[in-house]
């Protein structure tokens, strides 16, 4: 029963992935696109424009216009030079491969011309064509056909609608025609259809009643009929028909639709544009339901919340500009648009997703320093950036200006990557107030910007010394020495570049002092603190020693040993090595009897050692027993040390412990 239920349950699951894994049928339908309905006046003329994907084959292939009938599609005119009889002189076909379209001009229209035609590429009837209905009427008013938009997959569609003064105060909208009417996609209020979330923007233009709608990341499902209008569909206002077709050119897609950023790390966005117009402002903004919030633009504007977090780099040769956003948080998830003022220019959008993880570049994120001190900003990079170009730069809106810094590890020949020495350091010999600000450490590869890490440098001014800061430094024993000779490698003043020398990650700055007269007081301070620390350490050590000896006194024999230590030393003199050794022998407890060559002579001497308590006498006796035992065992040879001891446990000893 359970098994059946399980199988039944599993049967439901395969339905889910189908929608995301497979292309819709539109992907394999004919990529040739043209008007669905064309209207012409008697004795007038009509122009039919058909679009095709500008691949090499298509651009060189034959284009045709044929009339559909029961038996097939008979060619009327084609680019190979054929013109059907009856059409001589009144029809022409012109191919515009650069504009990815071809045009058919028909003049002197007759009523018999009404019918179904096909415009296509290649050979008739092979499917690479589009059906067109031609209607010739007497007139005088002709219904307007839909406006055609031929858009590449994943690119941007820009639609302009102008209705004049009537529409000025009305609601403006764009909707998509479906089976049950027209579904609203976007309007100038807050409404956005969820399929279009993050990728559609409606903006009003200067002319009254005109607006543009921009849709990015066009997918196969976006092909179809649209209506842009004012008022409400089916109730009031006017509409304009738009026919949109998405095609695929088998080449590299434009920009990545989704960029994944690690929390705390950074993300790089590349924005492409078609032509370079110096007058238009380029900006990067965050999508909101009815507007795009400006974040950064190339005239220097940076939104207040993004100070130090975002930078823009322009590369006019490749027609791209790059945006880097670092210090990523979960609330940065959303859609970001690269836009220009010029409406005709390419706009694009990217979705940013944030995941948990470890950033590649690590280091101190906030550094405080005093004016005039030496500061090192360190940046650690992992092995995966070994061959990348690394840099430090100072953030000044809207970009980040590179600064000279040195890489600890010069990438020479060889392919090993050590786990140490992978740091890039930016040094300031004598930091000034103007150096305060944001600094970025980043990697670059093949001309593309990679990960970055931001560090905020704060410079506290003046000689009113922060003693507390010094004491903080000095707490660590490694920094306990006076600052004049702190670092292992002495750095002479005046050298602007950074230096070798293993700096610990937490370089809090003020370990190196310069020869200012104010620093005399600053030197005395740390020295005094050092002495204090030493004194405390000594006191603590002594206390612990005392404590230890207290502990020792629980086993009373010990205390007296230590006392006798002093006594014996006093008596025999400092240089009497034999006696010191002797007292050490008797001192030993436990089962470790290091009998360093116990000779009968020694045993005699142990007896002679001055003892002042009963325990000591017992101790001496047991020692005697043991050593005598050892002497017996010693005959096989050598110093029988620890191996002997466990085998011959002194019978009396256990009682004493």
């Amino acid at each position: 029963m359970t098994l059946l239920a399980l199988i039944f349950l599993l049967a439901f699951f395969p339905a889910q992935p189908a929608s995301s894994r497979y292309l819709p049928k539109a992907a394999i339908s004919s990529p040739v696109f043209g008007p669905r309905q064309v209207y012409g006046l008697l004795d007038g003329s009509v122009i039919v424009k058909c679009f095709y994907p500008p691949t090499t084959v298509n651009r060189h292939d034959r284009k045709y216009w044929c009339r559909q009938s029961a038996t097939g599609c008979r060619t009327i005119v084609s680019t190979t030079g054929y013109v059907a009889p009856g059409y001589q002189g009144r029809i022409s076909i012109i191919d515009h491969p650069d504009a990815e379209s071809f045009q058919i001009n028909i003049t002197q229209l007759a009523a018999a011309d009404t019918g179904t035609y096909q415009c296509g590429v290649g050979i008739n009837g092979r499917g690479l064509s589009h059906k067109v209905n031609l209607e010739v009427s007497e007139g005088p008013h002709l219904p307007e056909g839909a406006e055609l938009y031929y858009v590449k997959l994943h690119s941007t569609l820009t639609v302009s609608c102008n209705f004049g003064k009537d529409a000025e105060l009305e609601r403006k909208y764009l909707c998509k025609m479906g089976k049950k009417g027209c579904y609203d996609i976007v309007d100038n209020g807050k409404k956005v259809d969820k399929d279009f979330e993050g990728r559609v923007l409606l903006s009003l233009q200067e002319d009254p009643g005109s607006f543009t709608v921009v849709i990015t990341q066009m997918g196969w499902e976006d092909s179809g009929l649209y209506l842009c209008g004012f008022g409400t569909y089916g109730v009031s206002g006017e509409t304009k028909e738009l026919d949109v077709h998405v095609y695929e050119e088998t080449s590299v897609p434009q920009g990545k639709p989704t960029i994944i950023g690690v929390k705390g790390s950074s993300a790089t966005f590349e924005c492409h544009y078609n032509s370079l117009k110096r007058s238009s402002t380029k900006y990067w903004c965050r999508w909101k339901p009815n507007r795009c919030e400006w974040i950064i633009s190339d005239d220097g504007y940076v939104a207040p919340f993004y100070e130090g977090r975002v930078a823009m780099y322009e590369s006019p040769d490749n027609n791209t500009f790059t945006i880097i956003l670092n210090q990523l948080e979960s609330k940065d998830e959303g859609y970001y648009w690269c836009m220009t003022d010029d409406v005709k220019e390419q706009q694009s959008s990217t979705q940013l997703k944030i995941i948990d993880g470890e950033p590649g570049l690590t280091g101190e994120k906030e550094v405080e320093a005093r004016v005039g001190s030496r500061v090192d900003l360190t940046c650690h990079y992992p092995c995966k950036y070994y061959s990348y170009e690394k840099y430090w730069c100072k953030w000044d809106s809207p970009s980040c200006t590179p600064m000279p810094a040195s890489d600890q590890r010069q990438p020479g020949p060889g392919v090993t990557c050590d786990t140490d020495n992978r740091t890039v350091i930016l040094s300031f010999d004598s930091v000034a107030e103007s150096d305060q600000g944001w600094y970025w450490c980043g990697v670059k590869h093949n001309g593309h910007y990679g990960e970055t890490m931001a560090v905020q440098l704060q410079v506290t001014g003046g000689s009113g010394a922060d003693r507390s800061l010094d004491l903080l430094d000095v707490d660590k024993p490694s920094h306990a020495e006076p600052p004049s000779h702190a670092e292992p490698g002495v750095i002479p003043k005046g050298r602007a570049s950074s230096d070798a020398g293993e700096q610990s990650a937490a370089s809090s700055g003020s370990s190196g002092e310069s020869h200012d007269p104010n620093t005399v007081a600053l030197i005395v301070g740390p020295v005094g603190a050092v002495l204090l620390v030493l004194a405390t350490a000594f006191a603590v050590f002594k206390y612990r020693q005392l404590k230890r000896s207290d502990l020792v006194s629980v086993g009373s024999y010990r205390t007296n040993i230590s006392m006798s230590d002093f006594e014996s030393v006093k008596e025999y003199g400092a240089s009497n090595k034999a006696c010191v050794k002797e007292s050490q022998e008797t001192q030993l407890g436990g089962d470790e009897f290091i009998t360093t060559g116990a000779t009968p002579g020694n045993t005699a001497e142990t007896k002679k050692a001055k003892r002042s308590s009963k325990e000591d006498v017992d101790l001496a006796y047991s020692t005697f027993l043991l050593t005598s035992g050892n002497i017996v065992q010693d005959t096989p040879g050598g110093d029988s040390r620890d191996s002997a001891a466990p085998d011959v446990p002194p019978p009396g000893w256990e009682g004493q412990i």
Partner: protein
Amino acid sequence: MKSSLLLCVALAVSLGVILVAGYPWEPEDKDYVLVNNKCQCVTVTSKLIPSKENPNEEIVERNIRILVPLKARENISDPTSPLRTNFVYRMTDLCKNCEPVETELGGKIYQAQQGNSCNEPETCYTYNRDKCYTTTLPFLHRGEIQKVPVALTPTSCYAD
């Protein structure tokens, strides 16, 4: 006994959840492409339609479209080979997807191949429009027979 009963209850609840929640909203008339094989000229699309017996149930309908090129040669790159009279279409071979796809792994994008046996060469029955097919023909020129390369699909062989 008790544990199996508990399992049954859990399964029943989860089934109920799925049936009540329903499928994710899909727009009308979703026709999906399963196969688009340009080499053998086969397309297969599938969609869900209400079943004839029980209109409340949905079943999968597959449309298989095969264009058989009757005037094709056994070897499409060799016009002197005999006419092909034997056309074999295998669903498993057609459904095999060897196109590399981009997947995201740990924040980076990688290219992955979806099929297992993608190294075997396919016998094509017709020309792929985007590829250039050439052959060499003996050409008598000034008393000498030379092998001259000729394009079988001229429109696909342009350089630009």
